[in-house]
């Protein structure tokens, strides 16, 4: 019985704090994306007018953790299949945050655009009972500024 109460409290805490953190994070992401809109990001490998530009490697990485509630819902999803919407928003946050951090680094170096941008995703804590405890997303690319 006490185990069940403990479990429900964990679930509630996970939900309340997880949702608050997610909402706050999305607000901050949208705000900073507006500020960095002038830095253009491309996946194209070949940089036009390469000879007139200076290139430098920039990267941004972020680690976001799953809350208890999301993990429980995703575990239930595991039994029946379907879209794991609990993790979709988590990965969306991680990708956008990683790109933002990369753009912030580009801004510091005075760059106007980032080329050949790539995203790498990896799960941390993979060993423990096959569950994803946290996810890391790394964004990297070549930032260029006029020579």
């Amino acid at each position: 019985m006490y185990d069940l109460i403990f479990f429900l409290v964990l679930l509630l805490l996970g939900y309340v704090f997880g949702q608050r953190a997610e909402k706050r994070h999305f607000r901050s992401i949208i705000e900073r994306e507006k500020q960095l809109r002038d830095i253009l990001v491309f996946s194209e490998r070949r940089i036009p007018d390469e000879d007139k530009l200076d290139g430098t490697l920039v990267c941004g990485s972020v680690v976001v953790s799953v809350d208890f509630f999301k993990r429980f819902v995703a575990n239930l999803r595991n039994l029946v299949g379907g879209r794991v919407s609990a993790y979709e928003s988590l990965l969306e946050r991680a990708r956008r945050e990683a790109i933002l951090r990369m753009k912030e680094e580009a801004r510091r170096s005075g760059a106007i655009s980032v080329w050949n941008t790539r995203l790498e995703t990896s799960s941390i804590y993979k060993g423990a009972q096959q569950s994803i405890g946290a996810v890391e997303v790394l964004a990297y690319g070549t930032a260029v500024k006029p020579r």
Partner: protein
Amino acid sequence: MAEYENPVIPEGINVSPTHPLKDFALLVAGISALIIVTVLALSLLAGQLARHIPFAQERALSASLGRWLPEPPDSAVDQKRQQYLQTLTDRLASAMKLPPDMPITVHYSSSKTVNAMATLGGHVVVFQGLIDTLPSENALAMVLAHEIAHVRHRDPVVAMGRGFAVMLALSSLAGFGDGALQQWLGGVGMLPILSFSRSQEEAADSSALQAVLDLYGHVGDAAAFFEAVAERQSAAHSPTMFNTHPDVEQRIARIRDFSARHVKPEQTPATPLPAFMKAA
């Protein structure tokens, strides 16, 4: 550098628009319903199959699991008590026309626990705490007949079969999730088993009443044990063993109803318990 456009990308295109709580509620309700139905079907099936296990096999199984049965009594008075219980049990067993290959072995325990139980292989355990609450031999016979009826109806082996099937199903299911999920699955899966044994208790009660009626010619004092329990429950804590038993008031009512339909208990006095049966 060429001209590029940077349009504003709409929000929420990469995330399913379901509310997390709705998702959660649907999953929990759906999976719980599925588990309850599966476990119910499995335990019914396992119970039906377990009923066909020969009693000799059940005895052999209980011999390998019997470590928890109370030790044989060492003091003279305890041996006397065990002897008395065994004699009473044998009388009841012959009144209930138990098949000859279904012997009942009584184990006496001097523990203060107010309980008696039937387990695999025809072993019945009676605790001194129970005997102390009973006013007469008739009341003790009712409890013993109830436990014998469980053995006769094959309830212990059915319960074991059900429990085993449910445990196997749940542990193989829960293997997919983490610890919290396993805990939740275990809690949901145990619900049907509790409600099942109620019908077995009722069947055992009615067989026991018939046996007591056959042996003594009346069923006076048959409800004594439950009346004592009802008194204790209203006075203090409720013993855990009654969680799976039908409501005590209901059982008393059923026994009274049975005795009203048969010989009046006032005509014959109840047989007293021998003095050595009560704890000092």
